[in-house]
């Protein structure tokens, strides 16, 4: 297990269990690096990486950018809002133009599911999927699983519930694949309208009652309601959603059990989670962000090694 089995990171679905462990092992070393007085290593000084964000992002974009800088790679940033995409250029043309400037790797976020898979077949560069529509967000799942491993010691046999808008969430799908490959049991919890009808075929438990879900789990991963992806109304009001599926201190008093809370961000305080829970000692939200840089460094490092 010294090399990744894939040439691109398109999704967790394509990774093997060994790949995931190799990424974790490498990330542990990078976590040491980013806690040193000098947080930078020279490994990738001959690599150029383009960050193509066709969809808005703050955390993921900053995290990738920082990971690339910590590895000494040269970087190009691109956001669709100020580009020729608006003038009608196709995706392949855009990327090929960037690649002719001698770019080795592309980190891409796109609103269309499968866009990075399509690109990986058409262009000559390593592709890292930084989120494709409602499909996958592999680095988020890796950093979530890494944070669970760090907190609980191992993932195998642990119980994780993903709460909220499963239907529109790429984080949910990637997390399900990743946690299952690491041997965890996964449950999804949310209103009927936000849970895909056939999701049990992936081998996950489905629960519609928040209290039951929390009583079952070791870790709760809370998702944001993605209003921007919802074309119809899936629930009567945010207030009602928050009353039935929002995490607050009162609920934790009822379940009488120590569980850890995760959230991929951005948080809508007062909707899916209240401030007193998000800022409590049970919450590992900020550790997730720190681990995100180490995980992305590991993924970029391991993919660059094969160029």
């Amino acid at each position: 297990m010294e090399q990744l089995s894939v040439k691109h990171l398109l999704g967790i679905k394509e990774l093997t269990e060994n790949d995931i462990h190799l990424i974790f092992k490498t990330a542990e070393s990078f976590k040491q690096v980013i806690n040193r007085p000098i947080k930078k290593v020279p490994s990738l000084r001959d690599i150029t990486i383009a960050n193509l964000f066709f969809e808005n992002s703050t955390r993921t974009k900053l995290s990738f950018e920082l990971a690339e800088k910590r590895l000494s790679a040269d970087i190009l940033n691109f956001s669709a809002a100020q580009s020729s995409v608006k003038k009608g250029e196709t995706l392949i043309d855009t990327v090929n133009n960037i690649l002719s400037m001698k770019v080795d790797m592309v980190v891409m976020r796109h609103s269309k599911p499968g866009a990075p898979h399509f690109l990986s077949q058409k262009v000559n560069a390593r592709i890292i999927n930084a989120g494709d529509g409602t499909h996958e967000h592999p680095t988020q799942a890796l950093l979530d699983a890494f944070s669970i491993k760090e907190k609980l010691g191992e993932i195998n046999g642990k119980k994780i519930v993903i709460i909220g808008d499963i239907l529109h969430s790429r984080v949910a799908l990637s997390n399900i694949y990743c946690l299952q490959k690491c041997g965890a049991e996964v449950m999804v919890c949310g209103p009927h309208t936000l849970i895909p009808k056939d999701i049990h075929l992936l081998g996950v438990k489905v629960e519609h009652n928040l209290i039951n879900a929390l009583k079952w789990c070791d870790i709760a991963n809370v998702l944001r309601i993605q209003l921007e992806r919802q074309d119809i109304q899936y629930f009567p009001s945010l207030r009602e959603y928050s009353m039935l599926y929002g995490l607050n201190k009162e609920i934790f008093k009822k379940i009488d059990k120590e569980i850890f809370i995760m959230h991929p961000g951005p948080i809508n305080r007062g909707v899916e989670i209240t401030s007193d829970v998000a800022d409590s000692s049970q919450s590992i939200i900020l550790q997730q962000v720190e681990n995100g840089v180490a995980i992305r460094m590991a993924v970029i490092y391991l993919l660059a090694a094969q160029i």
Partner: protein
Amino acid sequence: MERQILLSPLLFNHTIERLSHELIEKHNDFSDSILIGLQPRGVHLLTRLKYIFNTVHQQEIQCGVLDITFYRDDFRRREKPLIPSVTNIDFIVENKKVILVDDVLFTGRTIRSGMDALLAFGRPKSIELLVLIDRRFTRELPIQADFVGRTIDTLTSERVSVEWKDIEGKDQVLLYTPSE
């Protein structure tokens, strides 16, 4: 493949003990000095040195281990990616006299990476180098050791292997020469 013993178990241990005496001559009580073993194989020599300091000299020395994977200059020039080992330096390097410890000095590239990696922890007062085996005339960089167990003349095609009792079963240094 022809095999030749460069250091037998007895000589092996005498050599390391002599190195420890040389260190004391120069660094006295080690109040300002620290030993740092380079991962992976330099760490075994460091462990042995530490043992000799504790048992023979009844002296405590400050030790750390350093992984240099991310500082190597042959990343992407090898077939397989380099997988890192642990770094453990839980003290301040600033203004300390650092002695880097490795088993074999060959091209000098590992030591160059080691110095780079060490500087990420601060600015030491000085850096010295201790090796068990110095393969003379094979250097690709202008790097020399300050403390040498044994100097040998080898061809680049030959391979030197330092073996340890707790890992390979026997303390010895072997030279492998490819048969023609």
